[in-house]
């Protein structure tokens, strides 16, 4: 019997963590009970991107979007929607408190403004079935490349497309491929960098989870253009679902003869080995990554000689990021002209002349809709944050958006009209990076955030070169001092000096970009630093050591009736007062943990 309805249950990491596999089982059980198992099929898909409201499910062909599902909701959903044909409002997405629910996925703002190239199959196919990838046009780009195009022709198309490295560097892919192709040598490698380590970023994980074959096909096409027959995917071991799907996908591709010898009956051969990374951030750097594959400690080397000339095992090696590879099949299939019609600038004569295609971002922080979004280059930060992200939570005011992961920079509210473009972001001191986008509101302190990012890069510094190892450590000490009220105005100048030194003299991009959060926050939010060092105050009250907690005695006595909650919660026994009477804080004993502020129901605790 033909199926009439498909239940596309999201099985990305976010939804699986919220029990989406149990939801799937519950559906299967309920469908069987209602004898609908031959009419309705349950399909598990890759990440849909709207992880904030998971577990999610889309009912096709109607396109009805359900969110925040629980196992106990399933019988009702089957009865109402699948038997009686009444989509259930209470599981639908509601854009605002007083607004009606939106039934269809395509009408939800979060999805409406997105443009999918790298993620074109997300939510539409079961990533564990190669047939479904082929059904959506998969591997026909490879067929076209192998039978209708020469390696030079493929190279030319990628060059013309203006595709630039999606891992952060933004180096023109075609230029990299061309250099590699010109280097002599029989043994040559292509590598897919899936060692995504930025905190809060999951673009590459999501692509592999929802469409692993797109990455494999991209690598195959690249290998054909560059004359390589050996590929590696370097993927972090902390991505169990992505790793599993990638293994399955390479297995299926081998079974179908799409990896191995004589692919599509031609002389072209190529296979992929999967190497797992142990989670060191620095291994996302190309030379450190290659060292790690070889079994050496993951440390970068100076790149006097580029890896396209001498990379893995001293052979010519082309490394691209997951998202870059996933774009390749679509460019070959639809042509460079189509790709250049999306984005900014002009790449006809200068490969650095613009940013073409789309970019995947992980939108997190204080926005209403958090998740993964793929948007055309040139879209403004404002559109991403307010139209797709739905604005700032709890009606607060946006302070800054930090792009590019821990090595990116802060962009202030006044610059939100900035288009998303490699060069525009670099100009203001930030960067595209791999696509992290963290939104902060007025309750966030930029000094505190800069400290957070630097703590991360400092910990992940491999220690090989002194500027990065020692420089970031000293910078962190200064920031730490500022957040506890021991900073001086001279510290700010020292911070800048140290930052510039680390940027200029570090061996690799980790050190070269680690000071970005510090430099941009000093540039755009210097006033906030000055309040920290001059007045020893944190305007956002995020640096707790600078806060002074007091109790409004009258409010405590008359509104709260001396409820005693704060006294009970205080670990320092710093709060005095009898029940039913006003309480007060002994400032000598207070360690400023903020516990009293959190428990007071009457807003009687004040922070200065």
């Amino acid at each position: 019997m033909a199926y009439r309805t498909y239940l596309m249950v999201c099985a990305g990491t976010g939804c699986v963590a919220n029990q989406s596999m149990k939801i799937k089982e519950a559906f299967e059980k309920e469908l069987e009970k209602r004898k609908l198992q031959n009419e309705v099929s349950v399909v598990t898909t890759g990440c849909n991107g709207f992880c904030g409201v998971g577990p999610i499910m889309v009912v096709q062909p109607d396109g009805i979007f359900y969110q925040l599902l629980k196992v106990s909701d399933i019988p009702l959903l089957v009865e109402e929607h699948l038997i009686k044909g009444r989509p259930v409002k209470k599981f639908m997405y509601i854009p605002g408190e007083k607004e009606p629910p939106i039934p269809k996925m395509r009408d939800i703002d979060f999805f409406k403004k997105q443009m999918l190239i790298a993620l074109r199959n997300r939510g539409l196919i079961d990533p564990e079935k190669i047939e479904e990838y082929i059904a959506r046009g998969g591997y026909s780009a490879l067929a076209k490349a192998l039978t209708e195009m020469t390696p030079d022709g493929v190279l030319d198309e990628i060059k013309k497309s203006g595709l630039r490295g999606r891992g952060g560097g933004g180096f023109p892919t075609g230029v990299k491929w061309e250099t590699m192709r010109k280097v002599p040598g029989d043994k040559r490698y292509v590598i897919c960098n899936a060692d995504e380590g930025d905190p809060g970023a999951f673009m590459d994980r999501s692509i592999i989870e929802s469409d692993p074959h797109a990455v494999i096909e991209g690598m195959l096409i690249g290998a054909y253009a560059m004359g390589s027959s050996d590929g590696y995917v370097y993927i972090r071991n902390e991505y169990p679902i992505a790793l599993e799907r990638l293994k399955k996908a390479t297995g299926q591709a081998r079974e179908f003869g799409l990896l191995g010898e004589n692919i599509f009956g031609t002389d072209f051969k190529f296979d992929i080995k999967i190497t797992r990374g142990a989670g060191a951030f620095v291994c996302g750097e190309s030379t450190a990554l290659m060292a790690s594959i070889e079994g050496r400690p993951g440390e970068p080397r100076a790149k006097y000689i580029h890896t396209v000339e001498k990379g893995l095992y001293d052979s010519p090696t082309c490394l691209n990021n997951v998202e870059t590879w996933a774009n390749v099949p679509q460019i070959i299939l639809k042509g460079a002209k189509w790709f250049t019609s999306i984005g900014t600038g002009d790449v006809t004569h200068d490969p650095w002349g613009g940013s073409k295609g789309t970019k995947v971002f992980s939108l997190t922080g204080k926005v209403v809709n958090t998740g993964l979004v793929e948007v055309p280059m040139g879209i403004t930060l404002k559109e991403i944050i307010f139209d797709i992200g739905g604005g700032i939570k709890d009606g607060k005011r946006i302070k800054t958006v930090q792009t590019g992961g821990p090595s990116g920079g802060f962009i202030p509210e006044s610059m939100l009209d900035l288009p998303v473009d490699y060069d525009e972001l670099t100009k203001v001191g930030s960067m595209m990076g791999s696509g992290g986008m963290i939104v902060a509101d007025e309750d966030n302190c930029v000094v505190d955030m800069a400290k957070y990012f630097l703590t991360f890069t400092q910990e992940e510094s491999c220690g090989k070169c002194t500027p990065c190892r020692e420089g970031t450590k000293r910078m962190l000490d200064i920031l730490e001092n500022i957040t506890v009220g021991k900073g001086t105005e001279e510290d700010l100048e020292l911070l800048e000096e140290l930052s510039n030194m680390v940027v200029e003299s570090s061996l690799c991009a980790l050190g070269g970009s680690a000071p970005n959060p510090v430099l941009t926050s000093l540039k755009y939010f210097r006033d906030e630093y000055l309040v920290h060092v001059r007045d020893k105050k944190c305007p956002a009250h995020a640096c707790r050591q600078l806060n002074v907690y007091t109790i409004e005695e009258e409010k405590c006595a008359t509104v709260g009736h001396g409820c005693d909650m704060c006294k009970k919660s205080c670990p320092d026994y710093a709060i005095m007062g009898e029940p039913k009477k006003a309480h007060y804080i002994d400032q000598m004993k207070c360690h400023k943990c903020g516990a009293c502020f959190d428990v007071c129901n009457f807003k009687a605790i004040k922070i200065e």
Partner: protein
Amino acid sequence: MAKITIADLEKIREESRRTLVLREGAGRAKITVHMGTCGIAAGARDIMSAVLKEVEERELSDIIVTNSGCAGLCSKEPMITVELVNFPAPVKYIEMTPGKIKQIFDSHIMKEQIVKEYALAIGSEMTH
């Protein structure tokens, strides 16, 4: 499975066409079986099965079959609504039987000619 050829890619695509049309919600025609309490009591389940059987037997890959609630005309159930992409408005059919379903497929779905004797009206209530 043995090594696949470029021709095999096309074959796999053709075989999966119906699945994808449904998942992308982009069919040539949409048949809605009204399955409120009244519809089910009047035999809408059998109608749903008959519709799906027709789709299967005719190997139609671009027909979307779905269900909806009571259309408000309970005495004329079971009912279906047929929408063709190129047609200006949907058509409601009343008092369906598996035999009538076959006729509707022969004429309306395959030849784009409305079966007037079973048709109630042209037009539709809002579904969502």
